[in-house]
């Protein structure tokens, strides 16, 4: 395996800055890796080889000309296919947008391009971000590099798999119910859901507008922080964007430290349904934190058990409205003949997959006259109660911790026909999305049962994203010391170094 692909983004950046390697070489190495393994991993829907090399060469010219370059210059980044990008298709994992090339660029990918990052391709995802395994993609599922028969998580499964398989050091994802953190956990990498409003949604195709949060994937805490910082910040094109400085996440990632930090273990995130091996690694991580000087207590958040039902009312409701625009009139698939009404209905039936249809119907139901108060309205009230639970908790502790997801990567096909079982993957991640807080998934070991990765979830109040990185960096460093190497070194098969 080419050394270049196992280097972290931070290491690559330093090497390029020192003139040890060119951006073109770095990009070429990753393109070669993609060519070698992606037929098995299937992380990518589109590889932008020519454009990527052009971007890399541009960075090299600028460096030669002595222009100042940022930390991501020349670093390849894989982009979840939910972001609109110029010069590359954007499908959102759906047949209804197959081949669509948006005439505009998302704010985040624009910022990354301006920072010199190399957008290497678009990654696979559950259709319109609805799912926890990428099995809902209209173009086939992605595979977990740790074990190709297992799911890479979802909905940002392609991005997580790409990073875990060394196809790119960094990747963009979005988190609405856990769609960054859960794939990160089951793929053994780091993934963050920033504070809602901390990263721009302009150009990010909407699933559930009040929950969607673009965020970073990396193999290390520092790498995730570098991407987090580069992609975040106020955007006047997004009314829900927070006008405040980006929390100092990179600095925090460089100074992992939990001495004196008050950590709360969420009582409700344990018990039945949690794989023993996952709980074991989680418990060890908590003990580790304590040994590093943190003060650990148990905190009950009584309304968290209503988070899943509330989420599966709010998200589909907003989605049912957000997806109404896909009707074959202005872009994308147009199927069938007849009147406009008929063509719309036939197009949507042909273009959307089963899960999307399910959620559209569910959302339409929850918003219907006569049902609104009991369903959508009630769910929004539960949301308030969950926010209050968090507020009360953060009044006593600085961060909350829990497992990221109850199990390790499950087998492809196991839950594909069982929506309710699939939804359970989001149990621990959903409350953060409802409240708009920030949370990170950092690898904390392998489950004994199957040797597959588990993640530790750290949750912080809004705009305290740096706190996540401080804790995650401490855990990462301590675990590496305990194991003698980063987690990914344990991987077999495709993720093996």
């Amino acid at each position: 395996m080419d050394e270049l692909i196992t280097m972290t983004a931070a290491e690559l950046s330093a090497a390029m800055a020192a003139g040890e390697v060119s951006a073109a070489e770095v990009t070429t190495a990753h393109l070669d890796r993609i060519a070698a393994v992606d037929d098995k991993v299937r992380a990518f829907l589109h590889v932008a080889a020519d454009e990527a090399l052009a971007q890399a060469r541009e960075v090299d010219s600028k460096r030669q000309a002595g222009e100042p370059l940022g930390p991501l210059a020349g670093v390849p980044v894989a982009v979840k296919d939910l972001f609109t990008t110029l010069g590359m298709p954007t499908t959102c994992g759906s047949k209804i947008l197959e081949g669509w090339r948006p005439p505009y660029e998302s704010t985040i990918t624009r910022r990354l391009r301006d920072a010199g990052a190399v957008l290497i391709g678009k990654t696979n995802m559950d259709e319109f971000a609805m799912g926890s395994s990428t099995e809902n993609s209209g173009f086939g599922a992605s595979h977990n590099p740790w074990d190709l028969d297992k799911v890479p998580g979802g909905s940002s499964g392609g991005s997580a798999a790409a990073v875990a398989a060394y196809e790119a050091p960094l990747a963009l994802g979005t988190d609405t119910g856990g769609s960054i953190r859960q794939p990160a956990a089951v793929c053994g990498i780091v993934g963050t859901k920033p504070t809602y409003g901390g990263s721009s949604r302009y150009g990010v195709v909407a699933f559930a507008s009040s929950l969607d949060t673009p965020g970073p994937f990396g193999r290390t805490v520092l790498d995730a922080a570098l991407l987090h910082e580069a992609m975040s910040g106020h955007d006047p094109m997004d009314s829900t964007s927070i006008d405040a400085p980006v929390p100092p996440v990179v600095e925090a990632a460089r100074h992992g430290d939990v001495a004196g930090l008050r950590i709360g273990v969420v009582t409700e995130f344990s018990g039945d349904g949690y794989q023993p091996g996952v709980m074991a690694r989680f418990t060890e991580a908590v003990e580790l934190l304590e040994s590093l000087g943190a003060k650990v207590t148990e905190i009950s958040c009584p309304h968290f058990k209503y988070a899943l039902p509330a989420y599966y009312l709010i998200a589909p409701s907003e989605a049912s409205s957000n997806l109404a625009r896909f009707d074959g009139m202005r872009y994308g698939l147009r199927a069938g003949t007849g009147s406009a009404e008929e063509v719309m209905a036939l197009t949507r039936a042909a273009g959307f997959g089963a899960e999307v249809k399910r959620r559209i119907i569910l959302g339409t139901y929850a918003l219907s006259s006569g049902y609104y108060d009991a369903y959508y309205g009630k769910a929004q009230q539960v949301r308030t109660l969950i926010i209050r639970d968090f507020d009360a908790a953060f009044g006593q502790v600085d961060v909350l911790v829990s497992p990221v997801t109850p199990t390790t990567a499950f087998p492809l096909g196991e839950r594909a026909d069982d929506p309710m079982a699939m939804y359970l993957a989001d149990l621990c991640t959903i409350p953060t999305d409802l409240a708009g807080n920030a949370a990170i998934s950092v690898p904390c070991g392998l489950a004994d049962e199957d040797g597959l990765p588990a993640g530790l979830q750290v949750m912080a109040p809004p705009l305290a994203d740096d706190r996540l990185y401080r804790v995650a960096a401490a855990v990462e460093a301590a675990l590496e010391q305990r194991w003698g190497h980063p987690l990914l070194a344990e991987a077999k098969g495709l993720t093996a170094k």
Partner: protein
Amino acid sequence: MTVSYEAALGRYEPVFGLETHVELGTRTKMFCGCGTTFGAEPNSQTCPVCLGLPGSLPVVNRVAIEFAIKIGLALNCSIASWCRFARKNYFYPDMPKNFQISQYDEPLCVDGYLDVAVGGKTVRVGIERVHLEEDTGKSLHVGGATGRIHGAEYSLVDYNRAGIPLVEIVTRPVPGTGFLAPEVARAYVTELRDVLRTLGVSDVRMEEGSLRCDVNTSLSARGSSVWGTRTETKNVNSLRSVERAIRSEVARQAEVLDDGGRVIQETRHFHEDTGVTTSGRSKEEAQDYRYFPEPDLVPVAPAEEWVKSIAASLPELPSARRARLIEAWSLSELEFEALRNAGALDVVEATIAHGASPADARKWWLGELARRANDAGIDVSELPITPAQVARVAELVAAGTLNDRLARQVIDGVLDEEGTPDEVVAARGLAVVSDDSALLGAIDEAIAANPDVVARIRSGKVQAAGVLVGSVMKATGGKADAARVRELIMERLA
């Protein structure tokens, strides 16, 4: 139709309401920076936001909020201290997102009123709400006989107008106007239009669609306090149509009720050519719009200071102006209404400012000039004559340089763009002949040519002098002061 409007009024009480949509005259659209100029090339004023492209997001135009608050204040509404936008969900090709961003149960302005004067009486029309929303694109329907949807083979959609800011103004139902319902409704729309024009928030041209009215009508049995089922009538594109639509609906509903039937709650379409309404979409299968708060926009909470400063900046509203001018010009309500209906208030006021008397200013603008404007199919304000020039003509008449007849010719000259009044007087030689000696020649000729008339005058039939006056006026090309000519004739024959 077998039931006449008058007959219907004998048995029923009409109740009406109006929903008016106003296109705001902002430079850019409601949620994006695209331009709003009318008549641009198709799909040349669009962006990802107003096209509703996947991933796009709306951002509220601050001036649209300001304009809506202005309208609310002018209509005596309370301005919400906190409100949200909401999504109104339904599928239609001219709506790029298949939902419209509007306001539902939290409108920006509520509980106001507008007083309208009809036949010398004041009717207070309650305003239930004023809210903001975005307009849709426009479609051309191709293949059908009339260019309308029915029978069309396909449609062509232009999204230039998608996202234009609209303000929706909804009245409370207006009962108790009896047979004057159509006039009151028309007066309301007229007054509303004047208020909006005065505020400068829209060019309010019904013909161009920047002011659109839907009329709601229902009937209750005379003496009953129970209101009937109401229908909504769309495609009401002029003030006159507002009146005719109500008249037609009242008569139609009366006939249905007289026959023992039931009025169906539905949307009807008004036809300009026939003056009647036809059935459109039945509101009993009412659309479920599944309103919910717009998650891509944050609440609007206008600061008290902002609202106060907007209130302080409001121009003189039509009602205040009416009161002021009635007093200043000593007008009756009806006289004022005549001026207002002729669209002549501004020009009359300006003419008076240039020195003319109120009576003179009114006389010319409501008389000769209104007639000329009508013939040309334009507003009096669009005539190629300025208030200053009209004031000058009035001045010349008062000074005796012109008589009425000559003054009309001078006005003709100005309208035909021959120059200013003084230039026209000089070029056409229109001044009244004021030199008696110049007249005496013509007078002597008339006397010589009409001996029998002279005889009658001398025998005491003084009024016969009119013939001689006419003769002299003709001979001088109308440029004599008729009264002076008569005097001179009588002196001559004495």
